């Protein structure tokens, strides 16, 4: 991806004490003209047309970019629509703003441009960031708060960049807690204050001081990294060193010459934001230089050459080369007057890793490919270690070569959730009913053992010898399932050789329900509903405030409401709480003790089918036509996100445990409580005289 630091203006309403831009001598235009703005999109389009695989990220920067007003952004959008008709899908916009000028007027155009998050800065220390000659931080902070409140009300997000100055060094933890408490999701990036040519002693910090500042925070962050997941630079360093997934920022990638470019207000192309602020590495004027030409300019070649010079010189024996590449060339220039030296801030990284990160995490960084790197793409340069993009795990081999030949001793590798296990159990029962001699073994996965214990199709639950015939149950990788042509149950049935379509009966060998003593204690009413809000993934869950509203409605209408689930699932106020006290078989039989089930598309949908209890099932990202059972009421919320990017389907594993990125537009929020309630009444009426299947618990406790 190519990133452009786009500085359409150097004007700013702020007067932050460390800012180079507001102190910069104005030599050209202060704001990019509309003619040049239009030309920019012409240039981007020709650049992307020549690189069909490339994406282009435009980071609006300044000065203060909001000073331009929403109309300027509207014009940018129009130019993009006009000149990038075929490439606009590969252009993304981000923005860095002080937020003091943000108002609801920006919301619509931000959304049009796809801007969902604003990077901003704040400093609780007075008179560091402020307005006007007096650097009035009180007025700045009030406007800042007003801005982020408006941003949040529009459903947009923001993240914090904090600049560490001498004033910050006194109480690192106080600052850390303040900033993480203040930001909505606790994301903060700590950067040292940078200066070029001037070194105000009351503000500047040494690299060692920055290391110790970070070190104090890291001691607290590491044991609580789940609480504050994206604190930079810790997050990237831990991903790179501890998790082995290189996550390098521009200055340490060694590739910034080929990934970054900037555009200033007078149309000057430069390497990056800082080089633009400092009037370094000019690559030509937008007026007569294409982006392709800018990337081939001499200044870029200097940076590429730097890689080999630094690698063979200053950094020759450094074990951190792979994750540093000599550091930011602008830092080197600021400190030594030459790009061909390593960054003075390399001490920050090295000392931080050696004195804090490695001892605290217990993980020592071992360089991987420094000496074995592939031939450089640019003569005389060592290419940066390529960043590993996310690759979904390879689909499991569903049928091993030995499977067809094997009659017995085929091992089943059960994959998925408990609902999948109930389906598999039903398929195996059908298989063994059809041919009683046909038996299998099951690879022991602790969460499934209780589902399959005593299953007549299984002779063993354990661990196979190497080379055993194994059949995996990842039905979601089947082309017929992925194309929507076959239901999950039918794919599984076909996998085990059953003629399809087959009747979809679930099976659970353990037919003991919940302990009668427990059932007796539940304050059941005349009609009782089991609710199951949790689904293993937040993407399939209706928001909890809606569940609470539903439960209130049910109770007001005289229903008893019980909620099973795992101990750590969320309790819905008003529901009788059975979370965490039932085994899987007990939970699977619980629907047999209520009149109906209202559930997300999860285990309890299958359990309701197992017990023959009517169910209202709330669908969103998954399709009821592939999982839902006949006779159940299926309420399908239509997805609001791009249908071409299935959010939790096969190959989308990492999205499974994370909330829907659509926020308030999450499809599950489109469910209507009245519709759910009406469906419940309807299904209760419809099914009140239908007998339960033979394998469902037939008796209910007296009420």
């Amino acid at each position, binding site marked *: 991806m190519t990133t452009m630091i786009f500085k359409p203006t150097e004007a700013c309403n702020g007067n932050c004490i460390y800012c180079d831009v507001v102190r910069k001598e104005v030599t050209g235009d202060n704001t990019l003209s509309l003619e040049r703005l239009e030309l920019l999109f012409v240039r981007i389009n020709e650049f992307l047309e020549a690189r069909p695989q490339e994406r282009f990220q435009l980071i609006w920067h300044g000065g203060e970019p909001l000073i331009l007003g929403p109309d300027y952004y509207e014009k940018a959008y129009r130019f993009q629509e006009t000149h990038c008709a075929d490439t606009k899908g590969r252009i993304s916009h981000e923005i860095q703003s002080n937020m003091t000028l943000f108002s609801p007027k920006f919301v619509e155009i931000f959304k049009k441009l796809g801007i969902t998050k604003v990077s901003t800065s704040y400093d609780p220390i007075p008179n560091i960031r402020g307005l006007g000659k007096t650097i009035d931080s009180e007025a700045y902070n009030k406007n800042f708060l007003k801005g982020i409140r408006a941003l949040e009300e529009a459903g947009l997000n923001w993240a914090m960049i904090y600049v560490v100055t001498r004033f910050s060094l006194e109480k690192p933890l106080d600052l850390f*807690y303040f900033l993480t408490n203040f930001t909505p999701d606790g994301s903060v990036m700590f950067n040292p204050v940078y200066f070029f040519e001037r070194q105000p002693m009351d503000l500047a910090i040494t690299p060692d001081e920055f290391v110790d500042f970070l070190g104090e925070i890291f001691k607290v962050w590491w044991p609580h990294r789940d609480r504050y997941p994206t604190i930079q630079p810790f997050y990237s360093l831990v991903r790179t060193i501890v998790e082995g997934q290189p996550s390098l920022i521009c200055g340490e990638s060694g590739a910034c010459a080929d990934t970054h470019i900037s555009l200033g207000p007078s149309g000057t192309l430069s390497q990056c934001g800082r080089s633009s602020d400092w009037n370094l590495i000019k690559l030509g004027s937008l007026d007569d230089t294409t982006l392709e030409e800018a990337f081939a300019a001499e200044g870029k070649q200097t940076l590429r050459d730097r890689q080999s010079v630094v690698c063979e010189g200053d950094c020759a024996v450094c074990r951190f080369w792979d994750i540093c590449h000599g550091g930011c060339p602008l830092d080197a220039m600021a400190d030594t007057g030459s790009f061909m030296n390593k960054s003075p801030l390399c001490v920050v990284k090295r000392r931080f890793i050696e004195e804090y990160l490695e001892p605290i995490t217990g993980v020592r960084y071992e360089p991987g490919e420094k000496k074995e790197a592939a031939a450089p793409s640019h003569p005389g340069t060592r290419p940066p270690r390529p960043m590993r993009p996310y690759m979904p795990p390879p689909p499991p081999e569903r049928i091993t070569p030995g499977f067809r030949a094997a009659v017995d001793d085929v091992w089943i590798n059960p994959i998925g959730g408990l*609902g999948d296990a109930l*389906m598999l159990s039903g398929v195996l029962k059908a298989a063994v009913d059809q041919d009683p001699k046909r038996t299998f073994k099951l690879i022991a996965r602790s969460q499934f053992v209780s589902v399959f214990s005593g299953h007549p199709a299984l002779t063993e639950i354990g661990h196979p010898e190497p080379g055993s015939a194994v059949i995996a149950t990842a039905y979601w990788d089947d082309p017929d399932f992925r194309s929507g042509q076959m239901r999950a149950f039918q794919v599984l049935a076909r996998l085990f050789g059953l003629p399809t379509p087959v009747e979809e009966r679930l099976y659970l060998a353990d037919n003991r329900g919940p302990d009668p003593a427990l059932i007796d204690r539940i304050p059941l009413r005349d009609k009782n509903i089991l609710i199951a809000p949790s689904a293993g993934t937040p993407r399939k869950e209706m928001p909890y405030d809606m569940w609470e509203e539903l439960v209130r409605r049910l109770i007001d209408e005289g229903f008893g409401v019980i909620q099973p689930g795992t101990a750590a699932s969320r309790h819905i106020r008003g529901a009788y709480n059975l979370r965490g006290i039932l085994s899987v078989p007990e939970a699977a039989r619980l629907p047999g003790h209520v009149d109906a089930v209202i559930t997300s598309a999860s285990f309890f949908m299958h359990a309701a089918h197992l017990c023959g209890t009517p169910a209202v099932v709330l669908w969103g990202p998954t399709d009821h036509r592939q999982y839902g059972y006949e006779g159940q009421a299926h309420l399908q919320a239509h997805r609001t996100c791009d249908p071409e990017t299935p959010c939790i389907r096969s190959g989308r594993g990492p999205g499974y445990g994370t909330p829907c990125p659509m926020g308030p537009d999450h499809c599950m929020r489109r469910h209507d409580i009245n519709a759910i309630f009406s469906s419940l009444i309807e299904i209760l009426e419809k099914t009140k005289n239908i007998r339960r299947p033979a394998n469902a618990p037939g008796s209910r406790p007296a009420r």
Partner: protein
Amino acid sequence: MSSPNLVCPHNRKLFDSLGRQLITVRVKDPEQAFVAARNVRESGNRLFSVIVDTDHSLEEIDIPDDWGGISVALFIPRMGRFRSIRRKLERIRRMKIRVYLPCDDPENITSLQVLSSVGVSVASRIIQGPHLWEPLLDLMTFAILGPAPHSPIDPFVFVADNFETGGSVDWRGIYFEDPKEFFHLDDKGRVALSHHELINEDFIFDDPSDIDIREENPEYRLRTDPRERFFLTDHPCSRCPGWRVCMGAFVQNGAPPEGCSEFAAELLEVVEQYRGMRGAPMEKRS
């Protein structure tokens, strides 16, 4: 913006003047609870809950049958002898009653645990001091991590259930004290943002209709936006490790009480330990 919940005294005239509002009614006499609830409903308003704020212990209160259809928040000073309430337990469990006990006395903290263990929903009144932090820490740990089945002990279970990584939880609503949701009215319809302020006649609005335009009131915004209140000033709560599960709830007269920061930080640790049980297996499909 959530719809306002008006906490009112038992005053039919006041109810009639409000019309179609969500109302919580506060009474002192347990025997008045049902009548107050009926009056709210008959006035065309919607009943949220009845607060019975009495000086009697649970032992001394007869739980009437007519509480069956209403949600009751029973604010009492102490439980009383357990053997004397034994016979009421079944009735309490089958009704929508939550028992609130102050936590300035070790005996009350034990009582909360006892009641929870026998299936009664309880809440410790930890907004008010003085606080016995050590016994409260034990109670909190039992409430969230105790493996034996027990009824919720709030606010701890509420925090544990509602906290998400990266987020924060405001639990003052349990005590009808969340100024974003609860508005405390006197007989004349004047509005305060907490029961304490109501008693001190520290009103923010003179008329309930002002609640509809509350966001335009700078003082209201100051009181309800914790960032304005705690982060634009040099307030110690802004730097507290436990902020995300407290949000300044313990602050009295502008300052946090001693020990609350350590308590909130420990609460957050326990909640995270509890939430860690949840997991999110990457391969789950259905």
